[in-house]
């Protein structure tokens, strides 16, 4: 089966520092791939390259086996790749629907310059409501996102990504700032997106969470891929030693 997203020989340098050193990665539809590694292992660099925030020095990104160019966040988005950043990048002063459509508002008429088109507010609110409902993200009212709890905010951010990511959702530390119950909901949400047939890449430090939702784990260290295995109780210690370094 052709992977939805494949990276081959990804290399990225920051001056003398090697961020990525020939990394290969594949993720399939309906699969959760965990990207593990200590700080500075290159996880963030890799997902930044996939989401268009950085450009690779060398290497190929393929979607459905076809090489694609990702030079900007807009490129990534138009390919169906959405990223949920660790800081969520939400607009706390705006409602969920405005957050969903920020920068890609539905508006008419088409012949006017984009900035002075009339917003299709009801249509956007309705689509947002349906997406949140489908993904079982529960909010009380249509108020500003800033008034939601941490888990609800994470839910809105993930649902926003899901609403527009036809192919791949990348999540950076999705449970880092959350309590146990809130994390649970986000993990359920990840599984729901997987069941809808999307490919997910989850960057996380929380091993327990990874064990639970990931179908496959890729471990990185110092810009290289040092291991790839199926997370389970048996491979747990193996993963940990890969993350920390061979000698441990």
């Amino acid at each position, binding site marked *: 089966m052709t992977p939805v997203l494949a990276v081959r020989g990804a290399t990225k340098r920051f001056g003398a520092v090697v961020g990525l050193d020939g990394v290969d990665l594949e993720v399939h539809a309906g699969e959760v791939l965990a990207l593990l590694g200590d700080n500075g292992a290159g996880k963030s660099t890799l997902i930044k390259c996939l989401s268009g925030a950085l450009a690779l020095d060398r290497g190929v990104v393929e979607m459905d086996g076809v090489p694609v160019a990702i030079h900007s966040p*807009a490129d990534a988005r138009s390919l169906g790749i959405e990223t949920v950043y660790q800081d969520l990048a939400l607009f706390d*002063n*705006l409602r969920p629907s*405005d957050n969903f459509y920020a920068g890609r508002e539905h*508006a008419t008429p088409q012949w006017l310059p984009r900035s002075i088109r009339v917003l299709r507010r009801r249509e956007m609110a309705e689509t947002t409501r349906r997406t949140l409902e489908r993904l079982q993200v529960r909010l009380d009212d249509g108020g500003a996102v800033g008034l939601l709890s941490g888990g609800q905010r994470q839910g809105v951010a993930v649902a926003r990504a899901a609403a527009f990511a036809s192919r791949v959702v990348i999540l950076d530390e999705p449970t880092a700032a959350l309590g146990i119950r809130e994390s649970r909901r986000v993990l359920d949400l990840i599984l729901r997106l997987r069941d809808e047939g999307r490919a997910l890449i989850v960057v996380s430090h929380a091993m327990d969470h990874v064990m639970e939702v990931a179908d496959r784990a890729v471990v990185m260290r110092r810009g290289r891929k040092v291991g790839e295995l199926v997370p389970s109780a048996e491979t747990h210690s193996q993963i940990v030693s890969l993350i920390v370094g061979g000698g441990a």
Partner: protein
Amino acid sequence: MADLASPVEHGESRGSSPAADPRYRLLQAALFGLRAGPALILLVLVVVVSLTTPVFFTSRNVGNVFSQTAVIAVLGLGQLLVIVSRGIDLSVGSTVALSGVVGAIVFLHVHSAALVILVILGTGLAVGLANGLVFVLGRVPHPFIVTLASLSIARGLALWAANGTLIPGMPGAVDTLGGGSIDWLPYSFFVVLALGLLTLVLTTFLVWGRWLYAVGGNPDGARRAGIPVGRVLVTVYALSGLAAGVGGLLTAGLIDAGSPTSGDLAELDSIAAVIIGGAAFAGGRGNVGNALVGAFTIGVIRNALNLHNVNAFYQLMAIGIVVLLAVEGDVIRGHVENRVRLARALRHG
């Protein structure tokens, strides 16, 4: 972390709907009260003033209030856009003077009302555009300094061009717009109304307005979402300058002249109006209705103190105190919002 193994949560059974909790409802009510705050304050103010001052509600005095408040309201609408975008525009008072003076000089040579009006508005727009371009292209960290500089430059230009004195004469149309009235209702009231509606459409129904609030709420997020942040900011300052031009037009019409000292401290009035109207100084929040409410709160306080022959110095202090109250209201609102968040976290997860 062991808890993670147990699926769907205990929280589910507890508080199925947070609205059922009376304390949560109290928080919601407090939030609603704080949001309606500016309008409630103005309402109370109007009731108190009209009970203590019989002449307040005479048509002539109401016309006066409208006329005296028009410039603050117009500048406040421009300032609202700026403050929502996380900025500040200190130059609008000076721009009122400069645009009026430039208009008066043009009128000395060409007796065309249309041209004078165009020149006055154009001057305001030019100052605003310059502010925006310097701020964005110059990558200045905060617009405070940029507009402080143009406050000084525009005032200096106005004084220089007018040789430090008033330049009398304005076309009849400008005089009517700034000082005329239909019976007791001044024309300037309709200018405020029209501009208010335009700003309302711009901020709530058009894509640009959504971008404005996004930029004010989270500039980095806006950039990542592909919103043209720089362009939005330039237009914000251009529009604030244009509003100052309209303020200059009304002022020049009212005094039938271009005065290089007009609009003095008007920038502070406009900022006060927006803050009294409950906008967040940190950006991202504020609306047209409340900004107008803020402007009229200032107008009514001035008018009431005038009617009671209270020394003008006290007016300055009174308005300062209202600004402080408004800011404190914003702080309390922040606390209440935190409580709402906490309540939701406990109930929802």
